[in-house]
């Protein structure tokens, strides 16, 4: 496992895409922090980057990478190796290299300019989102055999999580405006890792706007240790379940 993992990592690092991603994140974070006069505002702008760019890059890059290494995977499968080991080391290699890229690109500037609880929350949410979208990408690739179709599914999934889901939520909110939906919204937010991550960061950031009734309900839940742990466990489930599903699928797949 270690050997495959090492091979995947060196292969990805040799690939210039991840390097470019790192440099891009680094440039954006430093320029945002130095452009805005106060660091909190820089953090806020960075929030949008993290919630849009990180999932997009993670999902697209992983899909393409898995498809491109299909011959390598076939070769490995012909060796006396467990399929589980192959798939998991691929997953570990992809997610750790994207996490490293995110940590260097966005984590280090945040730690330099804003080493607060909010900053740490942002870094951990960014890292978790990277892993979650690698897992989702692997599920998408294992389901579809065709490369173009697989990438299309990846983009659609990203679009769903970052845009369509929120539209649906707004639609539901207006359809059921007569009912108290605050508590239900906490449950609904768990259905989208991007939303969950955003709420976690925001509750640490601008509290005064969220202090209305809705904000108070969220704070009562996510502000407590139990709520915070629940939220993080949910995020880990979001990474774990797609990875596990894709593994099951891969185990039975006729390559």
């Amino acid at each position, binding site marked *: 496992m270690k050997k495959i993992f090492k091979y995947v990592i060196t292969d990805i690092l040799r690939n210039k895409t991840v390097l470019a991603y790192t440099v891009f994140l680094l440039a954006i974070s430093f320029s945002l922090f130095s452009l805005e006069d106060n660091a909190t505002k820089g953090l806020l702008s960075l929030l949008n980057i993290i919630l849009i760019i990180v999932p997009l890059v993670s999902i697209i890059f992983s899909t393409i990478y898995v498809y491109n290494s299909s011959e390598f995977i076939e070769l490995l499968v012909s060796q006396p190796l467990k399929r589980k080991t192959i798939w998991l080391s691929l997953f570990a290699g992809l997610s750790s290299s994207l996490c490293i890229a995110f940590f260097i690109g966005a984590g280090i500037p945040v730690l330099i300019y804003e080493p607060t609880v909010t900053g740490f929350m942002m870094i951990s949410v960014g890292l978790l989102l990277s892993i979650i979208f690698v897992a989702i990408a692997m599920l998408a690739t294992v389901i579809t055999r065709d490369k173009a179709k697989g990438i299309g599914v990846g983009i659609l999934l990203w679009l769903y999580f970052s845009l369509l889901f929120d539209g649906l939520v707004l639609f539901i909110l207006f359809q059921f405006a007569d009912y108290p939906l605050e508590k239900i919204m906490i449950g609904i937010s768990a259905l989208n890792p991007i939303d969950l991550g955003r709420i976690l960061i925001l509750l640490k950031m601008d509290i005064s*706007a969220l202090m209305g009734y809705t904000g108070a309900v969220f704070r009562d839940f996510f502000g407590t240790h139990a709520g915070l742990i629940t939220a993080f466990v949910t995020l880990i489930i979001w990474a774990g379940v797609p990875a596990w599903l894709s593994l099951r699928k891969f185990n039975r797949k006729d390559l």
Partner: protein
Amino acid sequence: MKIFITILALLSLLSSGHASTIRVGKNLPFKTITEALQKAKEYDTILVEEGLYHEKNLIIDKSITLKGIHHPVLDGEHKYQIISIKANNVTVDGFTLQYSAVSSITDYAGIKIYNAHNVSILNNVLTDTFFGIYSQYGTNCLIQNNKLTAHNTQEQQSGNGIHCWKSDSMRIIGNTVTGHRDGIYFEFVTNSIIWRNQSYKNLRYGLHFMFSHNDAYIANVFEHNGSGVSVMFSHGVKMFHNLFKENWGDAAYGILLKEISDSYIEGNYFERNTSGIFMEGASRITMLKNTFRNNGWGLKIQASCLDITLKNNNFIGNTFDVGTNGSLVLNTFVNNFWDKYEGYDLNKDKIGDVPYRPVSMYSMVVEKNPPSMILFRSFFTSLMDKSEKVIPSLTPENLKDDHPLMKPLPL
């Protein structure tokens, strides 16, 4: 101290002609203030030495000066109102009052003024009184440098700090009120001034103001109150240089203005409130040189408002600058600074060349449907805001600042 007392006594002699000074204390002929009061004539001074006094309800019905030396303690034993003033020209100075009765039928107070004029209440410390200082039909009274503290947690069990009802020409200066229901309460009070008070951590409002015309409140601090400050059904109110800070909650506002007209709001500072100002049914109000910083909503202005002029205000770091509930706009926004302004200034006159629309689409959505706060700062809502900026449809067309400033005003 002795010299001071002699001078004071001499002065009172001079002014009234034949007034005298009566001393009350443990080792003196008069052991209680009640006895001394019976003996006292008009314009006498009663000096009270240090100690604990159980006077039951002390009724002052003569024009006297009641002065405490080193804050003697008057105890209401949770059964009585502590001081009742029923004469004109009374001064109560330098006492500590504690534990008045609490009732849901009678408004017991630490010091209550009944239908009197020229009463001065100075330098007292009131602890755990039901109502603190209560003026009923008071005229031209001075309430200065008192410190009122209560420790209640329920609104029903708690009275107001400084409560004025049907009074006129009151001066409320430099008091500190905390832990009461409303810090300062005005109802049917006219021509009065509230100056340099501090009102914080009260259960309901820091300042509660109703049917009180032509009053001014200047340089006060209202902080951490349950619902901020509420000014209702009044005209001719002047609010200058106050600080409204950290009033958090769905129904908490820096100031709630309801049915206010012909008033001025100038040089105030609103910081970290859920809503800086909430206006409903307000008309002919001029707002100049206020600063709104880091609030959830800087200003919530309902469509029922008319002729509100906002000029030279700073809006910095608010989540939403302005919120409203309709498309009718009869107010003027001009020459304000908005930190979210993205326009340009070609002729370098420090005034932006394109108008700024402070109401975002998303703030309209939240106004209609509060739970949609869950989508706050999501990609979806920022996309919504951007497209609305290009083609306004839901946000009020006329709510805009045609000449926004490029740089914040030094306030």
